[in-house]
């Protein structure tokens, strides 16, 4: 059973294949839409044709006459039971008003897909159309129509100033920015615009719900937190949480898009009325129109520096287009404000960051969580400064890079961070100096090659997690955390850590699937926190298990507790006496059948880093408390530019990360490679386009993500392992940073080669060509 102490290999740090790889490559992995239950009904939804309107009435008669229709769910079936992570402003399905085109207004459950679709179209809804606000400027204009006219009455979980259609204003003030400009030799100022990016997880949202004889619901769906989902469903349908059980089958990607509820409340609402299992799976088009996107943003930024490269001051105004519902917007606006300083030491900083309601699809969490919106402004201004003072961009960054021992905005301590190593290693690995110099020479084919750099701060951690480990009779173990693996590989990493902490093999651990009935708590697969937070809980639970094993072994071997040691391979032995040992199997059998009872270890924790220091500076409206361990990255991208068409082709990427410790280096590389290519999509290809209030490209035909021919053939992942003192085995998270620096690195490479500076994303061939022609006209 357990392997021999001598030949035991600790799985931590090993490139183990995913635990579930085999089921995924054979087609056996089950995602929500692959599930079905006896008597299951199929659902379809009707979407709002108006960007802003009052729902006057529903006429369900025609739909109800359709044979095979079992239940209809509309706003009339619920009260004003609002949900939302920061502002409670959203209901299970549109009620009273619709606030964006595509919003779900009515749903039908019927015996089959076709019947449900036919019937839902027959629901006749009378609307009273209101004027809509379709942009940040329209929304903030004097006397603009209000997206939420009852905003003042809504529950908010944060303290921030607000204004008409402005749900939150986050303010940061350190030093004296206005006074500081005087001492600057160079001042760069600019306005930047970023677009709505669609998560485009490959699995469109799908949910299946069932109801038992006691009125308890079970919900299978793709999500990033069964627990958060359970709360959202219960609250939005006025159910006790004990009547809602959430389970997670395989999830086909999420990237932030499935952190809040998607369609689960609608499916449970239908199930409640139908008293039968109901499944709803969105079409790709509906998923585009209905769920959420990355926040479009407008960022004004001004940065000042001295001749020697010292960055003295930065002032920023951030406006996020939050769409029709609050969702994670105040949080994203807060992170924008906290990250827009960049990973630098800047004495004087002043930031205002607003989340603004508009009558468009809600924006929410998306890998990077505000980082990409401010990085394009901040990191291109650093390059502009470098150019103006004639300094190498990497040298300038190194000169100003925040030191591990120093404090971040608001007084958060960086502790161990490898910002500088990220920069120097990218410089060396990319042969930076040589490629930078070569960039000025046009190639034989008339195109140009260039390389650019960007670096970034992020955080890993936040909030709470738990873990339970139970030793089975034979000495193998069950690990249960409730952490959802969206495909990034956290299941494997958590099991590797559990095995490593217990000194046994991964094959000897069974991982429980996330289930609100049986799993301990995990706030969510978000904020790059599973490895860091769930991992810490796993290590804590393992420690407790080992203590219990020793206690029982002491009884078995009639020795003192302190004489015992854990031995790799699943043994507890007497220190200094090699053959005096008992296996976990023996101990567990003894515990189950003789004394002490089963070995069950658990741990529960909240992120316990420092909070803001009110004495240090002025911070108002930040909706989080302690936000996690700081992680840094530096990314260089080499591109080829076709100056005749404006097309930018990414050739190679170097991405260095302050990872603490890579529990599974191959898996980390996979995260980096995927994040980098999403960053390339954000930089070059992806943009949700609205036309007269409607999303005009809600399909993979018209909204383009990178394919094999559009992604760079070479992505070099560089891992800097400077162990974090609290991280499990010293590890920190990796999920988000890889997406953040790509757009600014490409923008900087473009400027280096051509002199043009794009301030709007994506950098489409058309925008590049227009800029090149404007430059040549001057």
């Amino acid at each position: 059973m357990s392997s021999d102490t001598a030949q035991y290999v600790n799985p931590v740090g090993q490139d183990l294949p995913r635990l579930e790889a085999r089921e995924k490559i054979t087609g056996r992995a089950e995602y929500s839409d692959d599930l079905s239950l006896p008597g299951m009904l199929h659902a379809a939804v009707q979407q709002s044709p108006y960007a802003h309107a009052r729902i006057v009435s529903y006429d369900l008669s025609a739909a109800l006459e359709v044979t095979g229709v079992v239940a209809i769910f509309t706003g009339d079936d619920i009260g004003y039971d609002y949900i939302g992570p920061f502002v409670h402003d959203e209901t299970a399905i549109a009620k009273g008003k619709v606030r964006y085109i595509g919003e779900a207004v009515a749903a039908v459950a019927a015996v089959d897909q076709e019947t449900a679709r036919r019937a839902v179209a027959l629901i006749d809804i009378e609307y009273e159309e209101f004027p809509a606000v379709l942009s940040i400027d329209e929304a903030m204009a004097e006397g603009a129509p209000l997206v939420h006219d009852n905003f003042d009455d809504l529950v908010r979980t944060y303290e921030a100033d607000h204004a008409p259609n402005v749900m939150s204003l986050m303010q940061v003030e350190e030093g004296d920015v206005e006074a500081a400009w005087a001492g600057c030799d160079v001042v760069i100022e600019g306005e930047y615009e970023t677009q709505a990016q669609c998560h485009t997880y490959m699995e469109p949202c799908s949910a299946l719900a069932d109801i038992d004889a006691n009125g308890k619901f079970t919900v299978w769906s793709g999500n990033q937190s069964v627990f958060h989902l359970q709360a959202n469903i219960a609250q939005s349908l006025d159910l006790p949480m004990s009547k809602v059980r959430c389970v997670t089958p395989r999830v086909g990607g999420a990237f932030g898009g499935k952190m809040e509820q998607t369609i689960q409340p609608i499916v449970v609402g239908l199930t409640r009325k139908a008293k039968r299992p109901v499944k709803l799976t969105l079409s790709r088009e509906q998923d585009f129109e209905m769920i959420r996107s990355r926040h479009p943003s407008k960022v004004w930024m001004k940065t000042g520096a001295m001749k020697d490269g010292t960055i003295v001051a930065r002032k920023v105004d951030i406006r996020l287009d939050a769409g029709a519902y609050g969702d994670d917007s105040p949080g994203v606006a807060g992170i924008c404000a906290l990250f827009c300083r960049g990973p630098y030491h800047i004495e004087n900083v002043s930031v205002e960051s607003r989340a603004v309601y508009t009558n468009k699809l809600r924006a929410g969490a998306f890998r990077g969580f505000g980082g990409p919106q401010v990085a394009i402004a901040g990191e291109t201004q650093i390059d502009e400064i470098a150019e103006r003072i004639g300094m190498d961009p990497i040298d300038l960054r190194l000169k100003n890079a925040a030191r591990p021992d120093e404090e971040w905005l608001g007084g958060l301590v960086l502790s161990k961070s490898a910002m500088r190593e990220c920069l120097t290693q990218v410089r060396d690995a990319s042969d930076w100096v040589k490629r930078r110099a070569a960039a000025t020479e046009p190639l034989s084919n008339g195109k140009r090659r260039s390389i650019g750099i960007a670096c970034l701060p992020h955080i890993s951690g936040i909030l709470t997690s738990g873990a339970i480990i139970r030793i089975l009779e034979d000495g193998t173990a069950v690990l249960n955390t409730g952490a959802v693996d969206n495909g990034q590989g956290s299941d494997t990493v958590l099991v590797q850590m559990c095995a490593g902490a217990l000194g046994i093999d991964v094959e000897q651990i069974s991982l429980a699937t996330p289930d609100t009935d049986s799993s301990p708590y995990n706030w969510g697969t978000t904020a790059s926190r599973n490895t860091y937070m769930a991992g810490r809980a796993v290590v804590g639970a393992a420690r407790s298990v080992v203590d219990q094993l020793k206690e029982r072994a002491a009884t078995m071997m009639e020795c003192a507790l302190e004489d015992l040691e854990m031995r790799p391979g699943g043994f507890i032995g007497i220190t200094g006496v090699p053959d005096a040992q008992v296996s976990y199997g023996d101990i567990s059998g003894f515990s189950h059948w003789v004394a002490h009872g089963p070995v069950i270890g658990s741990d529960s924790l909240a992120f316990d880093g420092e909070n803001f220091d009110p004495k240090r500076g002025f911070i108002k409206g930040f909706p989080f408390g302690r936000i996690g361990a700081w992680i840094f990255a530096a990314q260089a991208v080499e591109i080829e530019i076709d100056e005749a068409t404006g097309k930018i082709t990414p050739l190679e990427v170097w991405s260095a990360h302050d990872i603490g410790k890579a529990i599974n280096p191959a898996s980390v590389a996979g995260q980096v490679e995927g994040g980098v290519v999403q960053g390339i999509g954000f930089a070059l290809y992806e943009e949700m386009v609205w036309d007269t209030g409607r999303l005009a490209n809600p399909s993979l035909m018209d909204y383009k993500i990178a394919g094999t021919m559009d992604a760079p053939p070479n992505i070099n992942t560089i891992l800097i392992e400077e162990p974090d003192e609290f991280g499990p085995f010293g590890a920190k998270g990796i999920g988000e940073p890889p997406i953040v620096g790509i757009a600014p690195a490409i923008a900087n490479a473009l400027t280096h080669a051509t002199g043009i500076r794009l301030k709007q994303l994506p950098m489409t061939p058309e925008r590049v060509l227009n800029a090149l022609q404007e430059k040549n006209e001057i």
Partner: protein
Amino acid sequence: MSEKIPLSLTVNGQTHQAFVRPTDTLLHVLRDEFHLTGTKRGCNQGICGACTVMVDGKIVRGCLSIATNCTNREITTIEGIEADGNLSPIQQAFLESGAAQCGFCTPGMVMAATALARTNDKLSDDQIREGLSGNLCRCSGYIKIVDAVRSVCGGDAV
């Protein structure tokens, strides 16, 4: 609603039968009638490639194929790629290279890679990327997928 008619298809060497609508797609029939859910529905417009299956050995889009037009054809899905319970070389390579992340694109990707591997055993990276260009993946950045395919049918020419 149009009348359902009996349909018999050969999938992975076995005969499957169901009553379907004449316009039902192969993807719909595989998943919802034959309960072969390994083939995924990602866009239903032929763009993402998650529904890639083989018809007479050639990869096609399950979502753009009319099921009743696939009679008298040999249909192969991800469920038919393993050889007597063993992973195929491509599947083995996907396993070892860590090419599957969320796994939703993986069945289609494995089908496209399998078809590619059958064409030649000396493919350049460009040929591999071209061969997989119709299959979108949002997790991996394609690096490990291309690594996996290269390890099976990559040539010296790169």
